[in-house]
């Protein structure tokens, strides 16, 4: 089998450039202040979208087109091209000085997107995105990075990296959609909104999901055997569950809690499933590992869908279902993180007529993202129904293997979109 190598020129020496917007907006916009210090916490998050395009006559033609349209798009996102500044209170603020975001242009020689997908793993997929750690002077550090990778055999990958200080996966998706709209039709269908988040309300009602009720019987949690995850290889596996499977799972859960309350959403059902499997993989004989759930609070906070900023809030969930507010820094390294992206419309970013993304992934990096991640997303191309889902699980390699072998998972018969780390190439 042909192994397709991603031939990137040394990222430090070529093809990185600034993309600026078409307008001049020199002003300062305050950023939701977090106690976490980005200097210690690069906290990047990343999303990448992969497209299958017919092979082009001229190499780089697509990149040229996208280069022009991104500038257009950036006119609507002044915060993206700004730079971080410390205020006198020690908070962060964004100066919208139009310094630009950094863009990397890369090529994959010899190969099409399909071939690449057959061999993809976490390491390879992360090559499609670019990130730079914070420069010693934050004012000269770009908070957003875009990588355009053209496949010689036809295909395009777009990778977007950004700091969690300024955006969440939904914003990243919004940006890519806006870029696609600008390329395809020349204007943005839903411009973003920039404002501060309201102060968190301690009384916000959280549905204690049946997920937690189900596992209430495990009241005492035994300490998690400390695995030295620093030395282990982290890998990400992506599994697709079709409509029927997910429906069955939800019904099974309702039955389990004797029909009390509303049925779980596909996210809750899958999150619960993986929580159990991962806990087992981590060696918990009884009880579950601590897990934090990350939800989009736009609706709860009364924000517009177009809100641009990090409105994902972590819920620190323990088996005895106390759900206090918790900012990112409050999360321990030992927690499992579960992110709800099932309502994110990630496949609607269309850059060219009839060319939809064939694969979209999200990654979260940096300290504070826990001992593992579960991301629940919609399935590509709508899957075979509105309830089909893709779950991306990031764990140390051995635990991931155990999860894949877990009987609960195997019973459901998911399609493996991305398996364990392949040989390094």
């Amino acid at each position: 089998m042909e192994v397709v190598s991603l031939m990137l020129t040394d990222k430090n020496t070529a093809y990185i450039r600034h993309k600026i917007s078409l307008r001049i907006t020199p002003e300062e916009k305050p950023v939701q202040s977090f106690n976490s210090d980005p200097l210690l916490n690069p906290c990047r998050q990343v999303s990448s979208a992969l497209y299958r395009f017919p092979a082009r006559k001229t190499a780089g033609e697509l990149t040229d087109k996208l280069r022009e349209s991104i500038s257009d798009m950036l006119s609507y996102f002044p915060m993206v091209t700004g730079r971080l500044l410390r205020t006198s209170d020690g908070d962060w603020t964004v100066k919208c000085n139009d310094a630009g975001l950094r863009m990397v242009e890369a090529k994959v020689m010899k190969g099409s997107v399909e071939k690449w997908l057959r061999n993809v793993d976490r390491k390879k997929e992360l090559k499609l995105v670019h990130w730079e750690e914070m420069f010693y002077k934050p004012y000269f550090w770009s908070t957003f990075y875009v990588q355009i990778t053209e496949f010689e055999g036809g295909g395009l990958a777009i990778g977007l990296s950004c700091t969690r200080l300024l955006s969440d996966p939904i914003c990243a998706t919004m940006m890519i959609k806006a870029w696609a709209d600008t390329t395809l039709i020349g204007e943005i269908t839903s411009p973003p909104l920039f404002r501060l988040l309201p102060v968190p309300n301690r009384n916000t009602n959280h549905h204690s999901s049946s997920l937690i009720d189900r596992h209430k019987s495990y009241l005492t949690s035994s300490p998690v055997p400390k695995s030295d995850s620093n030395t282990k290889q982290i890998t990400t596996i992506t599994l697709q569950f079709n409509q029927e499977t997910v429906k069955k799972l939800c019904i099974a859960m309702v039955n389990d809690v004797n029909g009390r309350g509303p049925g779980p959403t596909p996210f809750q059902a899958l999150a619960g499933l993986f929580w159990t499997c991962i806990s087992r993989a981590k060696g918990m004989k009884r009880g579950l590992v601590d897990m934090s759930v990350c939800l989009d609070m736009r609706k709860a906070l009364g924000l517009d869908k177009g809100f641009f900023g990090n409105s994902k809030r972590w819920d620190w969930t323990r088996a005895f279902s106390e759900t206090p507010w918790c900012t990112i820094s409050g999360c321990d390294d030992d927690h499992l993180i579960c992110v709800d992206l099932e309502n994110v419309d990630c496949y609607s970013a269309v850059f060219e007529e009839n060319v939809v993304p064939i694969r979209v992934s999200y990654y979260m990096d940096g300290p504070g993202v826990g001992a593992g991640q579960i991301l629940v997303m919609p399935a590509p191309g709508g899957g075979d129904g509105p309830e089909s889902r893709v779950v991306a699980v990031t764990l140390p390699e051995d635990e991931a293997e155990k999860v894949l072998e877990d009987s609960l998972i195997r019973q459901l018969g998911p399609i493996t979109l991305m398996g364990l780390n392949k040989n390094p190439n």
Partner: protein
Amino acid sequence: MPETTAAPPNSPTTVKLKYVKLVYQYLVNHILTLALIPLLLSLLRVGPTEILSLYNSLHLNPVQILCSAFLAVLISTVYFMSKPRSIYLVDYSCYKPPVTCRVPFSTFMEHSRLILNQNPKSVDFQMRILERSGLGEETCLPPAIHYIPPTPTMEAARGEAELVIFSSIDSLMHKTGIKPKDIDILIVNCSLFSPTPSLSAMVVNKYKLRSNIKSYNLSGMGCSAGLISIDLARDLLQVHPNSNALVVSTEIITPNYYQGSERAMLLPNCLFRMGGAAVLLSNKRRDAARAKYRLVHVVRTHKGADDKAYTCVYEQEDPQGKVGINLSKDLMVIAGEALKSNITTIGPLVLPASEQLLFLLTLIGRKIFNPKWKAYIPDFKLAFEHFCIHAGGRAVIDELQRNLQLSAEHVEASRMTLHRFGNTSSSSLWYELGYIEAKGRMKKGDRVWQIAFGSGFKCNSAVWKCNRTIKTPADGPWTDCIHRYPVHIPEIVKL
């Protein structure tokens, strides 16, 4: 140049002096007319019959009359034959870079910091230059320079050349309606990028110009090369009757972005920006009606004989082997001297008699009576309505404004061009002319003085006379932003 002593502006002495000067100027400039009036009056008093009897008393026979007539015809023929052809500027077109090439201050500084991260002192120096440069946030650099680090390949340089030159020429052809086969003379000037085949060959290839075209490519002649090309075109149009000349002036930034850290060589990076212009000149009589300007004078001054002047703008390698242009600290002084030389030559050609007389008298006085008398600086505002000073940098414009005693409005075109487009080298004069037209200030009969400085050290001037009142153009590089100008440019911009 020393300044004349200035009394307080609104005192009675100054006002009286102004009136005296005005009367003096009117008298001297119209002396011929004034001398003719008594002659006319005496003729009228004499009466027609007396003139006729005077004529009869001369007893001229037919042969003598015929010979005189022949002589008159001969003299007038010789005069008309030897009179230089009028050179008309039919139209010109300036390149407007795409907004995606824009380099705001923040981007430029960040680039500098990332590329020169080993030399923070050099970065600070660049920042100080940029703060005081007089440039705005909309100046553009070519795509290759946006990369970190820049990727100045030959292909990228050719790409920039094609983009700038072809866009300008396309726009010019659209405006004037000229066909490629009608171009008889082609002159392209670009100082720092000189590939083989030349840029003029590139133009011939793209537009399929005639095989007997007279094409020239001037390189290495600095920012004053635009006027050198105009001078060359003028000389060629004297020799070739009924012809068109296409002059393209540009500077290709891509291969010349200095990547080292020597301070004296970092200055051009801060100031030079993308730009270009294409100009159509003609000596055809039928273009006289539609042409915008008529070329009156071109005066070229070369100070290269002086070693200091020769080395003040010098391309060399820095200690690390990186090539850049070294600007010496004496640049402004040398520029002032070159300007003085140029003015001494152009003054007699353009100044009204009153100013020339004053200058002559002061000169004689200084030589014979008292060398301590202040030299008289002629008032060029009497000779020209508009001034286009090469937007080499804020210091150049300030220096010339002071030397020539120009008002802020006179140098507005230069300052605003520097702000909007940066230093586009040889094409900046055309952007400035475009600004004046865009503001609707160009009327028929207005005289324009274009002054350019360049490496060598050269100071070149061109004088144009406006042929017809020019309506505000519907296209051009200024159309979308002229309403915002003039802007106030602070002494130091806070970065």
